[in-house]
């Protein structure tokens, strides 16, 4: 493969992988390609309340709360715990996450918080349910079992299949048609749960059921207890039942907190324990949601993003990630247009300072410093100084000028003048030095050409680097810089004419027309020189 083909090949791979990664990130990881997209984010706050066993001296307390896991249709974005002086730990046991709060001495009423943020995109979640237990056990004692049996018998008589049997049991319990219901619910002090009772009754008939605890994602709910949904295994499928007849029994907008198990909350060393949920939804930028999502997902690559850096470093990268585009603009303007600049990438650095100061204030301040600097430099060239010393002297002068401009503009009430400090002093000093040499060596005309060239390139860089779309894409899709690199590779292979050369060689082309040669292939000079 020729070297040229190699470059095109590499450039193509770079461009495609840049675009590919960007599209992947946009469509698979839900990073929005356009700034300003929003998504609905749910915030669920759970409050654990209990009273410590002793009102005065304090006893060791251990609170364990089951936490929701990642589930299909719902993405958990962020979670926060408050500890209030408790030791905090999370552990995973049988794929169930738990938070455990410990305290040696707890006195009086206690409150612990767990806050969760999530997005919900409405897909079914039934596959979360476990495989059924073929021989379910009941936790009822002898007396209870007798009572339960009578409920079961009645329901069995009044139903035709398993589904109607379960519905009937639920109805009987809801309406308390039989005195046994009261007896069972009162006796069942441990849970006092109707779902639990149905589960136990069904176990007598060897029908497996499990209790799904969680909450419905509905805006504005406050201090709700966890909802329970009863899943009954009928005809090789889990069917869902609940005791609030107005609700449909799908898991569509249900945040599953726990499947099976006896309770969400387990408190040792306290009483009157209770967990309540408050839910609100709000709109958040999709970009923020996507970042959260990336950072909290379990994949190994997730940590390898700019967003995992502290906010301060992120804002530095916001600027740094624009530099490749500035470089691209410089390459384009030099290779395709042919603008002369003093110092290859000096315009990018000037553009960076324009970003800090804004162009309107930055440009006049920059021109003032360079012009005054040139004046002083013209005196410096008369006294004998070594080059490094002279540039250093200009650095000092530039600093002085910056101070002067800041103070003057402040006194005049022009706050923008203070922005002068954003200019890189060393770069300014070298710019002045270079310009002054060009002045001495090649005359003011060249200073004007190269100075204007540099400024034009800097301004072009500035506009590219401040365009909202570009700023947004450069920071959120750094992968796109692979594409930038590929484009730079291709520009580096461009061997066609520069725009400036169309002017430069225009006279040669015109002379061809003037002589009106019959055959364009024959060079005009040969004819002419033949005469000479």
């Amino acid at each position, binding site marked *: 493969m020729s070297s040229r083909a190699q470059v095109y090949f590499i450039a193509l791979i770079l461009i495609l992988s840049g675009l590919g990664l960007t599209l992947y990130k946009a469509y698979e990881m839900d990073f929005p390609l356009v700034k300003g997209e929003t998504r609905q984010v749910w915030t669920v706050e759970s409050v654990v309340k209990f009273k410590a066993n002793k009102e005065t001296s304090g006893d060791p307390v251990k609170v364990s709360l089951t936490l929701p896991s990642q589930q299909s249709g719902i993405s958990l974005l962020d979670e926060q715990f408050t500890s209030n002086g408790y030791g905090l730990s999370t552990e995973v046991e049988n794929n169930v996450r738990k938070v455990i709060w410990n305290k040696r001495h707890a006195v009086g009423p206690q409150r612990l918080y767990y806050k969760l943020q999530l997005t919900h995109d409405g897909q079914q979640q039934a596959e979360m349910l476990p495989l059924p237990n073929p021989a379910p056990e009941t936790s009822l004692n002898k007396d209870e079992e007798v009572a339960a049996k009578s409920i079961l018998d009645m329901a069995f008589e009044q139903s035709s299949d398993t589904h109607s049997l379960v519905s009937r049991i639920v109805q009987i319990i809801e309406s308390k048609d039989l005195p046994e219901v009261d007896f069972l619910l009162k006796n069942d002090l441990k849970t006092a749960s109707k779902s639990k009772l149905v589960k136990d009754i069904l176990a007598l008939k060897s029908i497996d059921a499990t209790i799904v605890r969680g909450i419905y994602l509905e805006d504005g709910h406050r201090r709700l207890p966890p909802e329970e949904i009863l899943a009954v295994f009928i005809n090789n499928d889990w069917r869902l039942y609940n005791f609030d007849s107005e609700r449909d029994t799908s898991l569509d907008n249900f945040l599953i907190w726990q499947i099976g198990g006896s309770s969400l909350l387990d408190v040792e060393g306290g009483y009157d324990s209770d967990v309540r949920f408050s839910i609100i939804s709000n709109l958040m930028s999709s970009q923020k949601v996507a970042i959260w999502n990336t950072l909290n997902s379990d994949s190994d690559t997730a940590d390898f993003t700019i967003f995992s850096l502290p906010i301060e470093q992120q804002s530095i990268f916001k600027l740094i990630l624009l530099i490749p585009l500035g470089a691209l603009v410089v390459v384009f303007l030099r290779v395709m247009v042919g603008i002369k600049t003093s110092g290859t990438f000096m315009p990018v650095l000037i553009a960076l300072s324009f970003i800090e100061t804004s162009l309107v204030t930055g440009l006049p301040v920059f021109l003032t410093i360079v012009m005054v600097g040139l004046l002083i430099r013209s005196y410096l060239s008369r006294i004998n100084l070594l*080059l490094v010393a002279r540039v250093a002297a200009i650095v000092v002068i530039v600093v002085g000028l910056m101070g002067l401009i800041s103070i003057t503009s402040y006194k005049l009430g022009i706050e923008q003048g203070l922005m002068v400090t954003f200019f890189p002093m060393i770069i300014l000093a070298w710019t002045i030095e270079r310009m002054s040499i060009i002045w001495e060596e090649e005359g003011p005309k060249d200073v004007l050409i190269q100075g204007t060239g540099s400024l034009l390139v800097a301004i072009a860089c500035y506009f590219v680097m401040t365009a909202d779309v570009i700023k947004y894409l450069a920071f959120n899709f750094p992968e796109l810089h692979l594409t930038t690199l590929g484009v730079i590779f291709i520009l580096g292979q461009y061997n066609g004419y520069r725009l400036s050369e169309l002017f430069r060689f225009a006279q040669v082309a015109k002379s061809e027309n003037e002589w009106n040669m019959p055959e364009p292939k024959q060079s005009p000079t040969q004819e002419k020189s033949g005469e000479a």
Partner: protein
Amino acid sequence: MITSPLTLKRMGIMGMNQRNVDYIARYNDRQFYPLVDDKLKTKEAALKAGISVPTLIGKVSHQFEIKPALSNLMKLNQFVIKPAQGSGGKGILVITGRKGDHFLKPSGEQISLLDVQRHISNTLSGLYSLGGRNDVAMVEELVNFDPRFNDYSYQGVPDIRVIIFKGFPVMAMMRCSTESSDGKANLHQGAVGVGLSIATGKSLFAVQNDRLITHHPDTNKSFEELNLPHWETILTLSASCFEMTHLGYLGADIVLDNELGPLILEVNARPGLAIQIANQLGLKHRLQTVEALEHPEMPIADRVEWSRTHWL
């Protein structure tokens, strides 16, 4: 005034990008650059290869050598100070005479010993060199250029640029300084470029500021009559730079000394494109002809002969 890229392409005009990508990057190996970028090294190599160059009087490599060098310079009437790694003719100080303690530049301007000292000091600190590297100042004998060319140039020495591709002379021009170019031979600063016939060394066209002219703007001398002596020697000297530098695409800068004949001033690994304007002709067709040669390996004399028979 603007023209279309298609016209330029048909005429075989070479652009800067094509020169860089297709010729310099392809035919000039980086490892050979230091030899031409450092004029001291070029001079050494040229002497070894038997190529005539202006005589070196001395060199100043360190700041502490400036003082003793100045006392030597005081004894001289004429000399040239150059940065060894200068680019684009920057930092060349020509002294053509003395007036008491003062030195005379070709323009008649007087400068003091202090000015000369500062010039050397600046040169050493890299003011005129590529990338601002520390440099060496070389002191050379002034070329006494052929008086026949007095009227073709205002103040400066006219120099001849020959483009050598794979050892074949492909295009040549003479650069004459003018008043508006301030005695410098850079075309974009207003010097006159005279296209020269490769076959004969006679003038083809004269161009100043992209306009065709017939007479020198300051001396009014007609370029029609320009006919360079020693043309064969000039071409042979330029072509031999190929063996000396191993550069496939180079520009040889030559001056004509009254007594010594043609001398190589410097070799350029990145020769400019203005020569196409002076010749009113694109380089590309000629370069492609040489590229198409099956056996370009010939002795220097044969290569010069080949170029002279193939091109005007």
